[in-house]
């Protein structure tokens, strides 16, 4: 089976099923933080392939530049200096960007039909032509990834190079990564690859090495190999157990159709009240009382 199908599996603000006759394999990008040298080649590849040019900023006292994700920076490296043991400094460098959740909070939150889609290969993609710019995707995302552009008020984020994957190529960041810290393939293969890396890391003294594929969001299609999988938060606040916020669940879950139904019921109820009870008119007595005056 091919990786490159762009059949849509889920679509924002859409209540009917998407085409699902064809089956495709799920893809995943695996980022091995223990191999990452923080060279930012992935940032350049992302900017080049996607024709993005962020502002030339300033140095704010760290290597991180641009200092945060923006509508023009879909991936940034985040550098953390960590000393878990005395005199054992670690410089943990995490490539941040969309995790392509199996259960995407952005898609759940989005009110615009088709502005956010999830392909059957697992890629979550924003279709800006349908985006209304409300920013609900930001509210829905457990990883704080989407950004609204100041230029057009549309939401942007990593597409996992869905346009490249669609024609059988790996994402641009994967292609450019000089150390092979970023790899791409089927999700199964990537999990298998990660297992090998974890064995290697354990042999080097990282007893808690592991794969970051958080189940709270149904697993992700961008995964990390972490030296310290027990402490994802040391990697510049990678959430430990990310889930779609219960607030978002409450806001976008079953309550919505129920509330809609209730309001409909209320409106219909008034009609029936009118029909059954009749209008609340002035009584004949009082009416007569005043008829003479006029």
């Amino acid at each position, binding site marked *: 089976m091919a990786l490159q199908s762009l059949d849509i599996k889920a679509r924002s603000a859409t209540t009917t099923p998407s085409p699902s006759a064809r089956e495709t394999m799920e893809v995943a990008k695996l980022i091995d933080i223990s191999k990452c040298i923080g060279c930012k080649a992935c940032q350049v590849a992302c900017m080049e392939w996607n024709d993005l040019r962020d502002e030339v900023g300033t140095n704010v006292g760290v290597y991180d530049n641009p200092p945060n994700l923006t509508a023009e920076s879909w991936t940034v490296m985040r550098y953390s200096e960590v000393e878990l043991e005395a005199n054992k400094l670690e410089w943990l460098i995490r490539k941040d960007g969309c995790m392509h959740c199996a259960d995407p909070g952005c898609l759940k939150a989005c009110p615009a039909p088709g502005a956010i889609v999830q392909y059957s290969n697992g890629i979550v993609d924003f279709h800006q032509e349908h985006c209304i*710019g409300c920013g609900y995707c*930001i*509210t829905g995302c457990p990883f704080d990834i989407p950004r609204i552009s100041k230029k057009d008020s549309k939401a942007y984020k990593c597409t996992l190079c869905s346009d490249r994957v669609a024609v059988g190529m790996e994402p641009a960041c994967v292609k450019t990564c000089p150390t092979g810290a970023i790899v791409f393939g089927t999700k199964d293969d990537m999990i298998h690859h990660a297992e090998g890396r974890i064995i290697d890391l354990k042999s080097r003294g990282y007893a808690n090495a592991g794969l970051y594929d958080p189940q709270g969001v149904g697993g992700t299609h961008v995964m990390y190999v972490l030296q310290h999988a027990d402490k994802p938060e040391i990697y510049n606040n990678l959430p430990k157990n990310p889930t779609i916020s219960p607030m978002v669940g409450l*806001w976008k879950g079953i309550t919505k159709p129920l509330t809609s139904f209730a*309001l409909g019921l209320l409106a219909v109820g*008034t009609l029936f009240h*009118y029909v059954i*009870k009749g209008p609340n008119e002035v009584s004949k007595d009082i009416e007569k009382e005043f008829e003479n*005056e006029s």
Partner: protein
Amino acid sequence: MNRNPNDLVRYTASERANHWAVGMSFILLALSGLAFFHPAFYPLSLLLGGGVWARILHPFIGVLMALLFVMMFFRFWKLNIITKVDKEWLSRVGEMVNGDDRNMPPAGKYNGGQKVLFWLAAVCMALLLVSGIVIWRVYFSALFPIGVIRLASVAHAAVAAFMIGLIIVHVYAAIWTRGTIRAMLYGTVTRAWAKQHHPAWFRQITGGGK
């Protein structure tokens, strides 16, 4: 134009204008808000020119409505202070809904139900304004932590839904009680209407009269 000098003035022209300005804002907001509320209502966004325009205009209309409502609030809040009679009225609201107003205590300019609606509307307006500002992405969301934005999103949706229900009741009550709508349209009601529905008010403005 008032061709019947016997009719009673219930609302001045500016009061009516204020009410309808709030009302129209509310309708626009409710419809565009529903469009974001559930996919089934998304086509309603076309009323404001499509999704993007709906997203742009909705908060501005909201602010406008809030301002207009503040004006209205200061016009009417004294008349909506809940009294003992209102509590009595409210305790018998079931009878009223059932179409039997014989035992209802005499209502003033507003009955207990109207007053409760007034205060609930005021509270909803305040909550919608505050939560709406928090989720107004273009200008304000960046100032708030994500948890607050999420809470505000839920609050905005919940309060709006409640308020839509409230306004459905409000509108229906006006339709059901014949002769009411003209009060907000022309400003006047018949003396009979006043005596029937708001006897205490009728006594107050006619000095006891008939």
